[in-house]
């Protein structure tokens, strides 16, 4: 297999997705004609305000909530920060405990760590070998001092989908709030805020065909949390800052398209299963994450005796965009906390590869990824001093 600069296979949709042409089309008129400030009294402002509320209604419709329960933010990280800090500060003094998991995204983990430094007690619930939350441990930990239970809906690295409704029930029994980081889930699986029974839910536009720089937080009616961003009283006084109307319209359009295409996710899941099967036919490999309760596009496989960054660099050279949980590709030099939480030995965490597929991927892509990965793994194993077959 030769290096091919012409063909690119993008299999890193969990990192970000290309903006859909339909989304760009929906956004352009907002830049050109409908550029008013929704807070203004004049015609330009009123027109923008109408567009804003239409977009909010569209997005809320897809997410199974009321328009007034949906707040636009700048990104998923802001939504995560707001939900957790907002709930913690609102409950301070009465309930000082925060419960989360060991496999959260850094947007949640670092937020919890920051609150820990401020004096809040944080419990990190463990997961089983497939990445499913230990519900017994959760039941033991949730008490009348718990302000919020924050659990990721679908994990960004290993794709495992948590039983969030059950988790929400456990939280509510103790009078605690339940928040789910649904950044990876929205757009990939049906996400209905009411059905999930959570109090708050975060999402990020660029994970499903909207641009970067736009996110949202669902806050159930009646749930009181502190503001993170104060100012001119936008978003019904809860999240200030002039509304980013073109991006909000883009986010709403992308949600609509994701809903329309949800049926096609069955095809993506079949591609995922074929990719998993093909990669596991390479010796000394293992699947990370749940075999069935996983995102339709997520594939995470570890290869023994090789290191992830090397694999990603070679795959890139061969036209494939993938990622790894290896320490060597991160800024911290620590291997993925998610892979360690599922009990993967550090050596195997270093040898992990993640492919995240989308609608745009084909069977041909998957076969090419399998062949290229096999070649790369063999190439690197031949020069690995720890490979027993060498």
């Amino acid at each position: 297999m030769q290096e091919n600069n012409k063909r690119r296979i993008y299999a890193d949709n969990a990192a970000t997705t290309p903006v859909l042409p339909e989304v760009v089309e929906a956004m352009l008129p907002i830049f050109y004609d409908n550029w008013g400030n929704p807070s203004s009294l004049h015609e330009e402002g009123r027109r923008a305000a109408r567009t804003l509320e239409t977009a909010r209604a569209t997005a809320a419709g897809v997410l199974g909530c009321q328009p007034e329960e949906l707040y636009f933010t700048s990104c998923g990280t802001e939504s995560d920060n707001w939900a957790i800090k907002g709930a913690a500060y609102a409950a301070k003094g009465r309930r000082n405990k925060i419960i989360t998991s060991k496999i959260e995204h850094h947007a949640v983990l670092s937020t919890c760590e920051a609150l820990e430094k401020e004096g809040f007690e944080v419990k990190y619930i463990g997961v089983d070998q497939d990445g499913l939350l230990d519900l017994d441990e959760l039941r033991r930990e949730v008490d009348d001092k718990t302000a919020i239970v924050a659990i990721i809906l679908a994990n960004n690295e290993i794709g495992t989908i948590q039983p969030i409704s059950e988790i929400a029930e456990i939280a509510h029994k103790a009078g605690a709030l339940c928040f789910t980081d649904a950044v990876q889930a929205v757009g990939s699986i049906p996400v209905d805020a009411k059905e999930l029974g959570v109090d708050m839910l975060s999402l990020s536009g660029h994970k499903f065909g909207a641009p970067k720089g736009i996110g949202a937080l669902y806050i159930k009616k009646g749930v009181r949390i502190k503001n993170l961003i104060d100012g001119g009283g936008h978003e019904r006084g809860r999240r200030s800052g002039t509304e980013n109307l073109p991006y909000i319209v883009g986010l709403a359009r992308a949600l609509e398209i994701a809903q329309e295409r949800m049926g096609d996710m069955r095809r993506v899941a079949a591609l995922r299963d074929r990719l998993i099967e093909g990669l596991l036919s390479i010796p000394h490999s293992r699947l990370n994450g749940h075999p069935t309760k996983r995102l339709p596009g997520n594939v995470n496989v570890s290869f023994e005796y090789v290191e992830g960054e090397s694999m990603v660099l070679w795959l890139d050279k061969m036209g494939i965009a993938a990622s790894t949980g290896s320490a060597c590709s991160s800024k911290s030099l620590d291997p993925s906390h998610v892979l360690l939480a599922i009990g993967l030995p550090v050596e195997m965490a270093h040898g992990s590869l993640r492919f995240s597929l989308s609608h745009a991927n084909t069977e041909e892509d998957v076969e090419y990824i399998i062949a290229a990965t096999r070649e790369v793994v063999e190439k690197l194993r031949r020069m690995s001093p720890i490979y027993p077959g060498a």
Partner: protein
Amino acid sequence: MVYSEKVMDHFMNPRNVGEIPDADGVGTVGNPKCGDIMKMFIKVNDKGIIEDVKFKTFGCGAAIATSSMATELVKGKSIEEALKLTNAAVVEALEGLPPVKIHCSVLAEEAIKAAIADYYKRRGIEMNFTLSEHSCCERECDRKK
């Protein structure tokens, strides 16, 4: 993170990969937990010149590139000259490394020294230099455990 062209060249086309079955010195440094292991083989002639050098490395792009460059820098050199190899020289020859990858060059320097130490031991020569006990594992991944 961006690697220099030179790093990418030595990663994609590593020089001196392999083993020397009748090597005069073999050194291994690193730890699979850290994510990198380097094994160096040297063949030394009667005049104390490193006639041949080969390596095998498990690790990231920088680990492979620094191994490759280190072998290039000591090949044909005397043992004394090879002992003067510094990680900074490896970094310079590679036209730079990202800050988080500097430890790879340290590992490469130590791998060469470990192979020479083994050569000295086999010949019964007293060592006039010291080997770092921990090599790369003074790093974050180990410190946090």
